[in-house]
């Protein structure tokens, strides 16, 4: 039985508890012994991405101390996972346990597909779904092939979703354009950020999606904000919620 330390991004803990619960249930469903170490807060990405390395370092050290003894660390966010696996190097280089931590930290879909070897997820989701490929998961963790690269096409979240009964994954005009969240970018470059988000939503709407899903709740938080202000009918759900068997908050005519 794999012993998993559950790494829940700070804003998911406080604002999207249902995403954390869905992740927990999924991991348990596939036979993991899951523990949520309560001392965890934030991985430090907001500071690191602003250039404030010194402010990010204590959080990275705290993270290492909390998670170093688990067999695996799993997180329902590509971006926060990439912080640990791709950006902690310069903060924690040479610290005991870091190299092991980097290798045993996984994004949720990556963990399901690559470690637990899950082929299909049992469940029914009879709706038209648009998969938004969050950038760090796509281009840093390589959870899927990016449209820029001329490599064999694959997509770990897409593969899991496609196995659900009744689901229809819609085809987007721009399969992996950024939604414009980008952390502090969302407020520092407010105008461009919101235009990017609205364009991303529009692509999903035109493709006929009733639900937008993504591996990162931060992208969805940004697009939910725009959708709600503009009173659009399209809904957002984290991939973990759909895979764990949750249904859309507002009723949709099923496929």
């Amino acid at each position, binding site marked *: 039985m794999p012993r998993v330390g559950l790494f829940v991004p700070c804003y998911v803990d406080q604002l999207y*508890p249902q995403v954390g619960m869905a992740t927990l249930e999924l991991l348990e469903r596939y036979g993991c012994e899951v523990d949520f170490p309560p001392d965890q807060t*934030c991985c430090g990405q907001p500071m690191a991405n602003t250039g404030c390395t010194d402010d990010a370092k204590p959080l990275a050290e705290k993270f290492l101390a909390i998670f170093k003894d688990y067999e695996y660390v799993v997180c329902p966010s590509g971006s926060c996972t990439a912080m640990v696996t791709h950006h902690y190097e310069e903060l924690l280089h040479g610290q005991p346990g870091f190299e092991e931590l980097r290798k045993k930290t996984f994004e949720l879909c990556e963990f399901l597909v690559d470690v637990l070897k899950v082929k299909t997820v049992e469940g029914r989701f009879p709706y038209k779904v648009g998969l938004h490929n969050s950038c760090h998961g796509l*281009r840093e963790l390589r959870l899927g092939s*990016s449209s820029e*690269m001329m490599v064999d096409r694959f997509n770990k979240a897409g593969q899991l979703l496609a196995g659900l009964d009744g689901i229809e994954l819609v085809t987007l005009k721009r399969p992996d354009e950024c939604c414009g969240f980008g952390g502090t970018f969302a407020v520092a470059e407010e105008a*461009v950020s919101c235009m990017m988000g609205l364009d991303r939503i529009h692509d999903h709407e035109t493709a006929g999606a009733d639900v937008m899903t993504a591996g990162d709740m931060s992208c969805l938080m940004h697009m939910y*904000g725009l959708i709600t202000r503009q009173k659009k009918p399209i809904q957002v759900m984290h991939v973990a919620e759909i895979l764990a068997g949750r249904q859309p908050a507002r009723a949709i005519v099923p496929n």
Partner: protein
Amino acid sequence: MSDTLTVHHEHPANASEFVANDSRAHWHDQSLWFVRSKRDKAAGTLPEWEELRARASGIKQHAMSRLADYLEQFERNAQKLGAVVHWARTPAEHNQIVLQILQKHGAKKVVKSKSMLTEECHLNPFLERAGVEVVDTDLGEWIVQLRQEPPSHIVMPAIHIKREEIGELFHQHLGTDAGATDPPYLVNAARDELRRKFLNADVGITGVNFAIAETGGFVVCTNEGNADLGVSLPKVHIACMGIEKIIPRAADLGVFLRLLARSATGQPITTYSSHFHGPIAGGEMHIVLVDNGRSDILGSADFRRSLNCIRCGACMNTCPVYRRSGGHSYEATIPGPIGSILAPSRDAKTHKSLPFACSLCGSCSDVCPVKIDLHTQLLTWRKQISVRGLLPWTKRLSMKFARVLLGSTWLFTTAGRIGRWTLPKLPRFMVYNGLNPWGKQRELPPMPRQSFRELYRKRKSK
């Protein structure tokens, strides 16, 4: 030209002005996305695309690691072919060298094909002040010259201008019919006018796409043939290049030419890939090698790979921020992702907002034909800006605050609880006001009663 941009604005201010014209911003985004899509199709036709990228990156990194040797080899071989080679440390030295060559020949009229280097050195205004007429002969470049603007893109300098506006511009400058927007008609008018300029020119100036150390020759890629005409009619050819344009062998060209046009415009190859080996019969060829900060970049392990750049513009076409803010919003000779790395290398204080004009989506790094780790370098620039004390105090302070808040589990959970409880009770104007840029166009998420950790604790104790 670029000198007219004397008052400097931060990128977000320029970008929000561009975005404010919604239909134009979308037109700009879609025009560039169209080019990106053409690039995808062209790149997809080559099964060896990723292999080519890896080779190109390897060749460039090798060339940069022995740059001094290759430059001297190039100089020797170019001299053997009869060219005169000049070395310029700064834009001022470059401009002076060009002017001296012109003065030696009593030249008053110059035709110039596209060269980002001469833009970087602000050669045009310098020569104009010295009484020389300079005509940019690349159609897009000529259009922005007539409008007295800098280019907004390095491959498509006039990509921000609509057909109707070009019709109006040509009506004013060339006397074409008012209201004419038919591209062949406008192009023919431009061709007639430019033909006169070519015939009367004393000197032709070109840029350089690739300079080959092994042969002393160089290659200029254009789609309009303007570089060829510009250096075939006048007897004097001045080629201006940054020192990073060196590649070791003629055989390496096969890698770069295949990548360049496909990445830039989705063409299999540029219409003209002209190879120059020494002066034309009875003429003179001058090659000006310019450093202007490139040696400093070469000395930096973090940013060295930015010198791999072959100026294809693919990172601009793919950048979701560039497409929605326009090239001029960067207020730098080279805009977009690569420009946001190069500009702060020259002047970090002026260009400090550029590394933040980026959502760190990484599309530029994946599209780059020479595998520059663009988004990683942009992140590294953010650190440099912080280290050099150039971050705005609001950002600095909020990150210190976040460090304290997130550093303590108790503070974090307590602040979270208070926030989730208070926010829904506040009157709307206290949450959505000028102090909350998030809420200008976006709602905040609904505040849940319990956090995940509270639900988890309850579930566990059951």
